């Protein structure tokens, strides 16, 4: 009994402060969470809108698709349907891979029939300025428009349907290509299984 009394005498301030500070964080979070979520959606819409200019609306799919992330862990991937007057014009999802310095997060756009890539944009990265961060440049990104959605083919000559890495930023640009290939093959397979798009042999 004495030890309990001693415990409360010593720690009552810590216990009270923990509840008070917890409440303070909860109230702040409740007040700001809607705005934070809105910011994230607005950013995704802006980036996705740039990749699929014909789309007027981006709607998250009701159910996520199960894929294996780059690190080997299972991931529930949220897909967004890009529509124009109710007609599907593309699909949007985010992909994460390991770059030279840090994670590279991409927003990927695929055409409506999931046959070709509409493009990608870097959502977050921490690559070396002047070198690795050239993956953000249009010159690198534009070559992905229209390449077959699936395992991407790297070539040095830049033949149609293939992509070229950046000299001086080989690790970062290869990371982007491998991340895209990794996600595209799985997303395509899963969506065909779910019947959201036609199978290759039927199209």
């Amino acid at each position, binding site marked *: 009994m004495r030890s309990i009394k001693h415990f409360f005498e*010593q*720690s009552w*301030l*810590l216990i009270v*402060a*923990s509840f008070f*500070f917890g409440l*303070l*964080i909860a109230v*702040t*979070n409740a007040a*700001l969470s809607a*705005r*934070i979520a809105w*910011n*994230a959606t607005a*950013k995704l819409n802006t980036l996705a809108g740039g990749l699929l200019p014909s789309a007027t609306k981006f709607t998250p799919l009701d159910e996520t698709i199960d894929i294996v992330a780059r690190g080997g862990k299972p991931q529930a991937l949220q897909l967004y349907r890009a529509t124009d007057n109710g007609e599907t014009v593309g699909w949007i999802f985010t992909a994460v891979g390991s770059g030279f310095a840090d994670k590279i997060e991409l927003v990927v756009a695929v055409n409506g029939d999931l046959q070709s890539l509409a493009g990608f944009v870097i959502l*977050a990265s*921490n690559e*070396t*300025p*002047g070198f690795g961060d050239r993956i953000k440049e249009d010159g690198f990104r534009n070559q992905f428009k229209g390449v077959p959605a699936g395992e991407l083919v790297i070539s040095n000559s830049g033949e149609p349907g293939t992509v070229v890495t950046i000299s001086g930023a080989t690790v970062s640009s290869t990371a982007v290509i491998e991340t895209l290939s990794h996600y595209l093959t799985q997303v395509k397979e899963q969506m065909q299984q779910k019947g959201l798009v036609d199978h290759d042999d039927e199209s």
Partner: protein
Amino acid sequence: MTTNPDGQASNYTKTLLAGLWRENPVFRLLLGMCPTLAVTAAVKPALTMGCCVIFVLVCSNIMVSLMRNLLKPHLRILMFTLTISTFVTIADLLLKAFQPAMSEALGPYVPLIIVNCVIICRAEACASKNPMLTSIIDAFGMGIGFTLTLCVLAGVREVIGTGKFFDIRVMPDAFVPWAALTMPVGAFLTLGFLLAAANIISKKHS
């Protein structure tokens, strides 16, 4: 015993100015080196980090000062950390809500303010021993001193590393930016030169 209002006012001014030079957290006390090196590649993130630190410093100093007579000596560091982490979480949420671009640019360095030695140092050295007004003035002095130092460091790195200041081109077109200054090596180099300059100036003054 009567207190001299003029003397008290001059004490407050002294406390406020201490953080700017005599006890500047970065140049004189060498505290808070992690954000000083990590977020000073450009002025905008450095200024945002500085404002977050001022917010956390002021709020935590107020709370610590209010509870200073109730603190148990062996639990005081725990109480400081609890207080600081609460206000850092709030600062992080505010940044995500109202400055999402800066929140992304600063990344993990906002939550890492929790372990910024400047804040825990002021809680221990000032707020836990002084009334609220002195603690607030000390927090502002130290916070502004920290922010100014970060901005000076970031200004040098941004101008030489990119040719820009606050994202606006200020150097002539012929100037070739020294990109190394925007990388970690540039942070160490610039900090070293600025510390040397601060030491020379303070020696001359003394």
